């Protein structure tokens, strides 16, 4: 019996979450004394995974899988999971992984837990801790399938190097396309960091008064190599695109650093950013609820504080 980790890549490069799920898989394989298999699809350099401890890497190359299509990816991962006679499949909590996980779980008749935040508390029965109520709470879930799938929450476990000498299996396949879904085009916001992958996110709220002031957020983000985000009213008013709206009804953020500027810290906003590690708030109202949720705060006017912060950070970085 083995544990399989699906190491996600984008345009041939592994995502950071691929190394995190593999680190998680290594810890779980040690604990359960099982072998650890990593599976990659169209990754340029599968050997990169050997820094994180797999016993075997299955590197699949398939021209039909250049673009992500949930049904085809799910079919392939299910097929190799069966071949490897696995007991646990580990995925990340990226949008793509959460798309395919339920499909695979039906194909393998497997138990499934998403948003898992730590290594299982017990192996038999298999009990995992996961976040629920949009990060306002956690629950312990027992998975009772013969095979079980764990989707690890991004940034919850961390990346740990653990070099190994894995056996590498190259397979070139030609999967049958049996989905009637056709991807016509993909519009990528170019040059910017996406919220899901970002280590640092800089977010602006209604306190910034209008879209014309967003250069403050963008400049700060660019000094830090951060993604930009916003509160719900800001995207509702069209100051910023919907894709930047974070919170309970928007995107979840699990970055290392979240900087909120002119955001009051409503419960629905905080719900989406709870799993960010370090939170900084800049707000001119000392009573703003965000101060209760933040690690560091500056009480002050964004229009004075942020330009100074940008300037000082530029000096610090150089």
């Amino acid at each position, binding site marked *: 019996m083995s544990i399989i980790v699906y190491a996600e890549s984008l345009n041939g490069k592994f995502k950071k979450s691929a190394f995190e799920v593999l680190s998680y898989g290594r810890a779980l394989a040690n604990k359960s004394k099982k072998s650890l298999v990593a599976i990659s699809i169209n990754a340029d350099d599968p050997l990169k995974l050997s820094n994180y401890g797999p016993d075997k890497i299955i590197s699949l190359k398939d021209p039909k899988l250049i673009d992500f299509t949930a049904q085809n990816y799910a079919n392939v991962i299910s097929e190799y999971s069966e071949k490897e006679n696995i007991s646990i499949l580990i995925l990340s909590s990226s949008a793509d992984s959460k798309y395919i996980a339920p499909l695979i779980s039906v194909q393998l008749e497997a138990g499934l837990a998403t948003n898992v935040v730590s290594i299982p508390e017990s192996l038999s029965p298999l009990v995992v801790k996961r976040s629920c*109520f949009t990060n306002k709470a*956690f629950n312990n879930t027992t998975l009772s399938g013969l095979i079980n799938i764990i989707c690890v929450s991004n940034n919850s476990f961390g990346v740990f190097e653990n070099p190994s000498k894995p056996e590498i299996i190259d397979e070139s396949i030609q999967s049958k396309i049996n989905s009637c879904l056709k991807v016509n085009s993909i519009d990528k916001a170019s040059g910017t960091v996406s919220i899901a992958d970002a280590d640092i996110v800089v977010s602006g709220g209604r306190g910034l008064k209008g879209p014309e002031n967003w250069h403050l957020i963008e400049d700060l983000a660019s000094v830090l190599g951060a993604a930009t985000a916003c509160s719900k009213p800001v995207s509702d008013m069209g100051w910023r695109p919907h894709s930047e709206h974070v919170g309970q009804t928007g995107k979840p953020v699990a970055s*290392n650093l979240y900087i909120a500027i002119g955001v009051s810290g409503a419960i629905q906003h905080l719900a989406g950013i709870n799993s960010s590690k370090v939170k900084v708030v800049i707000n001119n109202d000392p009573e703003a609820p965000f101060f209760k949720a933040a690690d560091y705060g500056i009480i002050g006017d964004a229009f004075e504080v942020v330009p100074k912060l940008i300037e000082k950070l530029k000096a610090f970085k150089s």
Partner: protein
Amino acid sequence: MNILVCISNVPDTTSKINFTEDHKAFDVNGVQFIINPNDEFGLTRAIWFQQKNQATVTVVTVGDSSCEPILRKCLAIGANKAIRIDTSAKDGFYVATQLKSLCEKEKYDIIICGRESIDYNGGMVPGMLAQMLKLPFVTNCISMEVIDNVVNAKREIDGGIESISSSLPIIIGAQKGLVEESDLIIPNMRGIMQARQKPLDVIDPVSSSAKSSVEKFQKPQEKESVKLVASENIDELISLLHNEAKVI
């Protein structure tokens, strides 16, 4: 056109989340329940199909009688018919199995779920249902048009938008963008009155077992209080982020 919208009954977004003393269950005391926000976006889109394409909109929930008020609300918003599958939702797989059985009996052209529920946050039911029914599935769906049985949909992906086409029938996972917040329909008196006359069928569950169970709940640990830095002293913030938090 026949549309099914799957509705999950969830605590209001402003609710304080508390658990019973033994931490085994969610404490519903004083909590108001609402239509899961993602499902409400989906329901609104369905009502537009009803108005423009004469679609029939059925809403369904898997749950006990305490879920009926939100089904009535869906009827007041404009759904034609409601179904309650009379059992408590044990896990995503169990719910999907119940919905599958309904979808095999009735023929639906579009099945709309929310991208995820805001209580369990599994994001599991729509994908499981799609795989069980072997239907095409688009989650994180932010736009959907149907012309001559061809669906053109848009899906939000990490850092972009994907355009997809498919045939009917289809399952989608709805989220904001499919319709806007300002498009949501607030039931008026007439809608509420009409809702009382509309059918709300209660049907028996099929037998199925769950593949997971929740043993106990926990609240996050209390946080330490915020470290305030004076606005004249930005260097100190940078130093804290660099040396103490080690995030820059």
